């Protein structure tokens, strides 16, 4: 695997650098973002405090009291070479059991209406897709998941909910996501998983990591309850 293009490295502020791999939506760019992120996370580099992966970019926060932004920028050139040569670990494949519709997926009819599909078809499309975690961002443990069938694309709610239960599965535009904790949210809720995908006390045990492949498996109400008890 090689990084197709060298990223541009631009200061985003006087303490952050953005490494941007270009505007294309290609698997090569996704791979490059994974490689660089993995490399930076597994090889602690003096002067870097935080790593913010995105769809086509990685932003790093510099510890400016330890190292100048210029010095880090210079070191990143070598890091990019090393990352380019890095073999990515085989992605985990994670099955996410989902109880679709009903009280746990109150917007499934809205999605059906908007897309012109039956609710059965919405479930069938959502649960047959091959998804991948592009990165974790926004709030603690929130996975940005790519790969949803564009037929399911539905705009966000006009009025976001004040509280979305943890484990809710949502659709916003052509993205799908899982709420790791109970937060306000504006995505269309189509179902809910009984799994705890993220525990802030043990972030290293997060169910989903960058690069993981995901499949959603429809389950029944009684299965949902059984999962919850385990």
């Amino acid at each position, binding site marked *: 695997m090689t990084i197709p293009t060298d990223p541009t490295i631009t200061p*985003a502020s*006087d303490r952050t650098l953005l490494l941007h791999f270009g505007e294309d939506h290609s698997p090569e760019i996704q791979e490059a973002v994974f490689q660089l992120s993995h490399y930076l996370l597994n090889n602690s580099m003096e002067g870097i405090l*935080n790593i913010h992966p995105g769809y086509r970019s990685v*932003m790093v926060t510099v510890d*400016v009291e330890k190292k100048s*932004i210029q010095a880090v920028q210079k070191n990143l050139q070598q890091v990019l070479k090393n990352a380019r040569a890095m073999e990515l670990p085989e992605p985990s494949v994670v099955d996410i059991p989902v109880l679709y519709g009903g009280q746990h997926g109150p917007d499934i009819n809205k999605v059906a209406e908007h897309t012109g599909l039956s609710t059965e078809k919405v479930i069938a499309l959502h649960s047959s897709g091959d998804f991948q975690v592009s990165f974790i961002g*926004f709030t*603690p443990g929130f996975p940005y998941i790519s790969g949803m069938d564009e037929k399911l694309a539905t705009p966000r709610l006009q009025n976001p909910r004040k509280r979305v239960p943890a484990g809710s599965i949502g659709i916003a535009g052509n993205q799908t996501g899982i709420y790791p904790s109970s937060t306000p949210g504006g995505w269309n809720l189509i179902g809910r998983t009984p799994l705890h995908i993220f525990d802030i006390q043990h*972030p290293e045990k997060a169910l989903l990591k960058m690069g993981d492949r995901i499949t959603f498996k429809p389950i029944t109400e009684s299965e949902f309850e059984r999962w919850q008890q385990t």
Partner: protein
Amino acid sequence: MSITVLKAGTQTIVQDLGRPGFAHLGISVSGAADAFSFRIGNQLVDNDPNTAALEITLTGGAYEFGSNAVIVITGSTFDAAIDGQPIGNWKGYNIEKDQCLQINSSRDGARCYVCVQGGFDVTPLLASRSTHLMTGLGGFGGRTLRKGDMLELGHASESQCAKMNNVNEIQGQLNRNKIRVTKGLEGDWFNDDTWNSFLKNQFTVSQAFSRMGIRLEGNVIESSKGNEILTQGVPLGAVQVPGNGQPIISFVEHQTTGGYPRIANVISADLCKVGQLKPGDRFQFALVSMAEAEQLYAEQMKIIHNLKAS
């Protein structure tokens, strides 16, 4: 060794310098909103720089001390007293067992810090005692202090408080009439006229001001290239411009990634001023170069280091 909350303030939370290293999991750094005043406070009572203190916003409350302690208040000037005896900022005080520290309203900016020698001994989460209010994590139960809460204090070194001869210089660092920025990642999305308007006119801090972000009101800032970028990392202090053209400054509890274009970014040396902004404040942005920004932060750090030496 503890203190008890007799009366809660608007938003009193336990803070340290934050929780770096977890942005890739969606966890922003948090930490003191005005890290400059926070650091000086710890310096004055001879604590390590990252020792947990109380961050007080707008109004302070009342706190009874269960043991003798050495305290200092830094940041904005609030009406503060020990058992009715007024006390000032930037100066160490001995407080005795059963005495009460009262902190009323601010006479100045949004926040002050109560640093106690030995610090506040809450259980660290991911190596930090900082409260992340938006997600309810860390600090004291992940929340604002309430009446009746009891907080343990750490071991005090019993050393002398440092003296400060440069209060004016320090207060100058907190003057929030002007907030300096560097050009943002999407700075080119805004044409010259928009930039002129952005720098010439004042902005007002709206009621929507939190540790996550500060919404501003003023002349509409219009992007010439759209209102959305593909989700990517958000830097601390990013001046984001959503579709309504009213900028939002991303602050210490900001979301780790986002999609608004960023016209500018507050320089590190002026993040302490952002931490002091309160609703109704009016200020102007000023553009500086990256090199100037780095220089200004180095100078600010020097003020803290010189304090150590004195």
